[in-house]
């Protein structure tokens, strides 16, 4: 009765049966069902024969369709919000019954204007005079994507190891402080070396800040969700203090809570020329994608990360030191999130920063990781998409007067829809998947928040 929606197609009865059988109470029954299903599956493969029909079905019931559907739905909701808050639409709605065309035209104008602005701001500005200006938005999108991808990887990696890293904000702040402090405080060091030192300092700061959560979890069983949330605030106030205190992070001779500008020798060079904002940070993020892919799928460390994530008890029996793995996971995750903070300070905002340097990336990273299904390549795609939203959102705000917060709404709706595939499938009348999702993909899997981790 729970979990059934009206438009939901019946699942394979065998799968349903299997789900409902208590394997501990009736091992024999569970066993027979398994074998029965295996037989049925073999038969099904032989019978259908028409390969592509089967393939189509698989695509339609696969995760990616849900993702696309979620994006479409969220954008639709965003459009509705734009329409209803548009002044001209409201005006014309007053005489809707006299001249309905006016309101519809106004609505179309509002939405059309918004999305063309979004497109111009994020991909290609067809109204621009020069090619440089026309493709500049795309580079802005990728610039935004750099930190999002890095931080998204940090969250995704932790997800895969069964940990929720909600602490992106704090880790980015600490990384920014670390990189910034070396970036403007250290003098007389030549270009590549200075940059390298600043990079390392920032990444290290992010890793250590996340490591606190790892150590607390490993040592005391404190739940990482609570710890990372609290650490966000601690970091925020710590940075606020550092920024307000002369001699620490505050720019000399200034009363504002802001740092000095980053020195030239510590700035990430522009990637495709000075006219475009895109800097080497994006390349670092791409490298991080490859690194995380290798780590998770090809390395023994990643193997133990995933084993701990999926079944910590079995991992322990297999000789994996679970507490140590927990700490390592958080260190690596923090380093990745730190990379996002570093890019902010050494690439995007080099003129000195305040305590808002995280720019919401810490929380965006969670949505990026979820949209990317905790898969490194998926994170890359999701990061670029959200980077585009950010770039386009600014253009929308500037050009059409639509508050950029609409991006937050669309982003969070996407994640909500993705998290509940049955909902999206029901709305689009897609077939529900045949094979039972084994408790979903890791990030969306339900773990007890606070029950685990007792001594």
């Amino acid at each position, binding site marked *: 009765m729970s979990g059934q929606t009206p438009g939901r197609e019946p699942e394979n009865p065998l799968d349903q049966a299997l789900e409902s059988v208590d394997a501990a109470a009736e091992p024999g029954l569970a066993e027979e069902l398994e074998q029965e299903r295996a037989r049925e599956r073999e038969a099904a493969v032989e019978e259908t024969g028409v390969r592509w029909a089967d393939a189509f079905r698989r695509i339609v019931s696969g995760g990616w369709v849900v993702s696309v559907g979620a994006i479409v739905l969220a954008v639709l909701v965003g459009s509705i919000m734009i329409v209803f808050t548009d002044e001209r639409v409201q005006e014309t709605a007053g005489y809707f019954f006299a001249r309905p065309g006016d309101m519809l035209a106004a609505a179309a104008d509002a939405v059309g204007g918004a999305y063309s602005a979004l497109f111009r701001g994020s991909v290609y500005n067809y109204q621009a005079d020069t090619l440089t200006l026309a493709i500049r938005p795309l580079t802005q999108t990728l610039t935004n994507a750099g930190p999002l991808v890095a931080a998204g990887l940090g969250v995704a990696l932790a997800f895969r190891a069964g940990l929720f890293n909600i602490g992106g904000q704090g880790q980015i702040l600490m990384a920014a402080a670390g990189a910034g402090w070396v970036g403007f405080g250290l003098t007389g060091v030549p270009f590549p070396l200075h940059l390298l030192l600043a990079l390392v300092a920032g990444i290290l700061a992010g890793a250590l800040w996340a490591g606190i959560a790892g150590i607390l979890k490993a040592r005391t069983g404190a739940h990482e969700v609570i710890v990372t949330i609290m650490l966000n605030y601690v970091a925020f106030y710590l940075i606020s203090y550092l920024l307000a205190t002369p001699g620490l992070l505050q720019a000399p001779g200034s009363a504002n809570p802001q740092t000095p500008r980053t020195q030239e020798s510590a700035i990430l060079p522009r990637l495709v020329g000075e006219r475009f904002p895109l800097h080497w940070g994006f390349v670092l993020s791409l490298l991080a994608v490859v690194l995380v892919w290798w780590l998770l799928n090809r390395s023994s460390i990643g193997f133990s990360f995933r084993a701990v994530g999926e079944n910590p008890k079995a991992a322990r029996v297999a000789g994996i030191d679970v507490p140590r793995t927990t700490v390592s996971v958080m260190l690596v995750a923090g380093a990745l999130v730190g990379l996002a903070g570093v890019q902010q300070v050494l690439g995007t905002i080099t003129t000195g920063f305040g305590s808002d340097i995280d720019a919401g990336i810490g929380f965006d990273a969670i949505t990026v990781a979820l949209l990317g299904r905790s898969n490194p390549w998926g994170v890359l795609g999701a990061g670029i998409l959200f980077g585009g939203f950010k770039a386009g959102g600014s253009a929308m705000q500037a050009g059409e007067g639509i508050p950029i917060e609409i991006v937050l709404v669309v982003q969070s709706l996407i994640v909500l829809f993705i998290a509940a595939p049955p909902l999206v499938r029901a709305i689009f009348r897609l077939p529900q998947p045949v094979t039972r999702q084994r408790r979903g993909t890791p990030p969306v899997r339900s773990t007890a928040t606070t029950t685990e981790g007792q*001594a």
Partner: protein
Amino acid sequence: MTATTVDGATAPQAAAPSRAVSTVTPKAAIALGVVLALYALLLLLAPHEGDARFRLSTERDLFVLPTLEVPALATAWVCAAIGLAVVALAVVRNLGGRRVPLWGTVLYAAALLVGFLAWAAAGSPRDLSVVGLLSGAVVLCVPIVYGALGGVIGERAGVVNIAIEGQLLAGAFTAAIVGSLTNSPWAGLLAAMVASVLVALVLGLFAITYKVNQIIVGVVLNVLVIGLTSFLYSQVLVPSAEVLNTTTRFARIPIPFLERIPLLGPVLFNQTIVVYLMFVMVFAVWFALYRTRWGLRVRAVGEHPKAADTVGIDVVRTRYRAVVTAGAVAGIGGAFYTVVSINQFNREMTAGAGFIALAAVIFGKWNPVRAALAGLLFGFATNLQNVLSVVGSPVPSQFMLMLPYVVTLLAVAGLVGRSRPPAADGVPYTKE
């Protein structure tokens, strides 16, 4: 859960009364000692000469208590001595295998607080108003306490609610609009509850029906509400602020006679209805959870949903009801911002209070009374910062603001005793 209990209980039969004994760790004594050492270090490294003046009365009191003027450093050290005595007591108790008594902890906290205040206010040209400190704390804790009560109800039913922040914000936003349109704070309050319940229903839909991970839903809901309210604020509220964003606030209702008791009167008996309601609500939630059929079922569903199911309790419906009730309670906290505290809505005006409420839930060990006290403590810490900045304290304000979060970190790390959440907290229920 059952399985482990079963195994544990089978082995030695003598295990029966074991829980009552439970192990006494030296953690508490160590923690008390460390904090005391830090405090003493502060006094040594940054001694403040001069006197500290505590103002205890306001003009309206029945009789006026004198303004207390004490030599700061001496007072601070006396307080340190009291703290040391408690630490010694803790050590002795610990060796005897017993816990630190509650009064000891309270005395310790009070001593260190007074000492700290004396140190901080030393030599300040202004008096430190104790009334202001306390009444401000009561006011500041209102949204935290309501949020925490909502959190306790939800988690007792097995639904983790990270979205308290979103509920508060949605409540504040709706109360602003409805309160402005109707010119009635009551309508605003009601609207806030409805809005917060709507957020709760979305949480329920995803967490209970779709069994999506509750932490994810909570985090995302917060972002969604921040996005929605900020978007509508700039698009709708700002252009017509006169009509849509100017509320009438609840007036203070002084309780005759009681309000004139020195110290207590202004703090407790000259507040708005929302504050009085808060005191009632803390007790009501406690009573409902532990003394009524509804509460028994809510707790059963949060501890062992399958057992509840087999005695004919509808787990899903019980959880939905709890989540909705929790939403309504949290909504009152949201209304506080726009129909009690100030008369308009601002972007992201809850500023993390929902997360402090979440911290209070855990710090309060999922008990409504304890959670409310934790909320009060956090409100106090925030207000302490305000007051100290008036006195011109040497402690950077950021560290005072950080305090609730640090305290919670210490709490979840087990320094204030191991707390046990409801067994099925955060676990969706799959019916057979």
